């Protein structure tokens, strides 16, 4: 009820009755919606054993696992590269030399404004035309690295800037060098504050590996299309995509939950003077996970 308390007073007897009626009506409405979808599924034979049969086969399960493996591989490589890319460009943007700052700003702003799919196409169509052999994995990974690396660079920069200036002043006052201030004072505090935001950006990266489907990189979604398109099993697209969606939701949901938990935990801890950059559920950051 805490979130509703802004708009509504504690309900009195009449409001309680009205809310109860609305509650029953909306429950009925939601159940009707679910029932309609279930009916539509049953009506078109989505629950037939034939459409689900192949998921019992070890070979099909191996296919799905292979797809998941390809997804996780692309996400893993891209995550490491994006973190390095982000750290590099964030430190360049935080530099007090303009000739480091401006090119880094240009790169970060540019890659954040280009649609990710177009970045991936640069690595896919250009080599394709000239007959250079480039793995589709790398076309995907480089696109993911450039985009998510740029977003991470902004998160890192915001994290460092969120440490109160007094910390820097204090460190300089006791005779630390610039390098020491960053390494010993700012980074340890900033990492705590930006960890939730980093984890939720990695969820975005993991979700975006599904774009590999479009350049026919054999990730989970692509494997799903192949399994769903099998005629002997009655073109089981619906069951297959439900299973694929469940896998994505389970993995991304677990990571999102981790980000949320980190945020709660960091919010309590007093080891950093910096304000925690929220992972989700707060103001402007609701927009970040898109």
């Amino acid at each position, binding site marked *: 009820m805490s979130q509703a308390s802004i708009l509504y007073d504690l309900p009195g007897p009449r409001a309680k009755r009205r809310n109860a009626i609305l509650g029953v009506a909306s429950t009925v409405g939601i159940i009707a919606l679910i029932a309609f979808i279930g009916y539509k599924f049953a009506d078109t034979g989505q629950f037939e054993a034939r459409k689900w049969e192949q998921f019992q086969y070890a070979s099909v399960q191996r296919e799905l696992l292979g797809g998941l493996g390809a997804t996780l591989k692309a996400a893993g490589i891209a995550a490491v590269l994006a973190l390095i890319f982000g750290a590099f460009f964030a430190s360049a943007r935080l530099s007090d030399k303009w000739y480091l700052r401006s090119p880094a700003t240009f790169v970060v702003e540019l890659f954040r404004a280009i649609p990710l799919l177009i970045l991936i196409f640069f690595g896919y169509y250009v080599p394709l035309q000239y007959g250079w052999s480039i793995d589709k994995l790398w076309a995907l990974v480089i696109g993911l690295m450039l985009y998510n690396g740029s977003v991470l660079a902004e998160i890192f920069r915001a994290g460092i800037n969120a440490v109160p200036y007094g910390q820097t002043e204090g460190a300089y006052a006791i005779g630390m060098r610039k390098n020491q201030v960053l390494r010993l004072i700012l980074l340890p505090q900033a990492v705590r504050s930006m960890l939730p935001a980093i984890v939720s950006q990695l969820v975005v990266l993991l979700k975006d590996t599904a774009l590999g489907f479009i350049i026919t990189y054999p990730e989970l979604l692509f494997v799903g299309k192949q399994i769903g398109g099998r005629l002997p099993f009655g073109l089981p697209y619906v069951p297959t995509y439900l299973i694929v969606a469940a896998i994505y939701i389970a993995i991304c949901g677990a990571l999102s939950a981790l980000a949320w938990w980190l945020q709660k935990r960091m919010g309590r801890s007093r080891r950093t003077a910096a304000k925690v950059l929220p992972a989700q559920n707060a103001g402007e950051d609701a927009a970040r996970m*898109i």
Partner: protein
Amino acid sequence: MGEFFRVLTDNGQLFVDGFTNAVKLFLIAAVGSLVLGTLLGAMRVSPVPALRAFGATYVNLVRNTPLTLVFAFLVFAVPKLDVNIEYFSSAAVALTVYTSAFVCEVIRSGVNTVAAGQAEAARALGMTFGQVLTLIVLPQALRAMVPPMMSVFIAMLKNTTIAAGFSVLEAGAIPAYMAERGEPQFAVLLWITIGFLILILPLVALQRFLERKWRVAR
């Protein structure tokens, strides 16, 4: 360099069609997700637990699903349910379903930024629910909502390119056509990039301006 401009002038119609469809798709999905997202946002701040749970479930499921999967479901699976819609509409529905989860979150967190004391004071003055909402809460919440809402829509404009993977002639589909015509792809992709920068950079600038202006005022 002449080659670079020739790519655009020789294939002008394709670029115009691609970007027109991208903007069309964007506008339709923007209206759709604003409506659906507001509805879901209203559910999430409503006093009815069933509606709150429904809104929360929708947001958590959709937010952890890749947009490409939503597209694939609409294009490949939904026709198997005897619902036949054309590719362009599928793309608009996919973008709407996905984006409204984020619109919903922006609205919910926008309402939550208003201090509880504001609404309490308004009620103490004897204002009705409608007055509290329209005179006190929404004017403050909107300031907090507009910048992140713009980020969501900027992201959606970029996401329209995904429709190209699902048979919609859209800006992202231009390279596939150009591959058949044998045009230099690097130039083609640079032109598409420039097109998106022209569309997106003014929006980013406006968003940052509003963010700066309204942060001080609040």
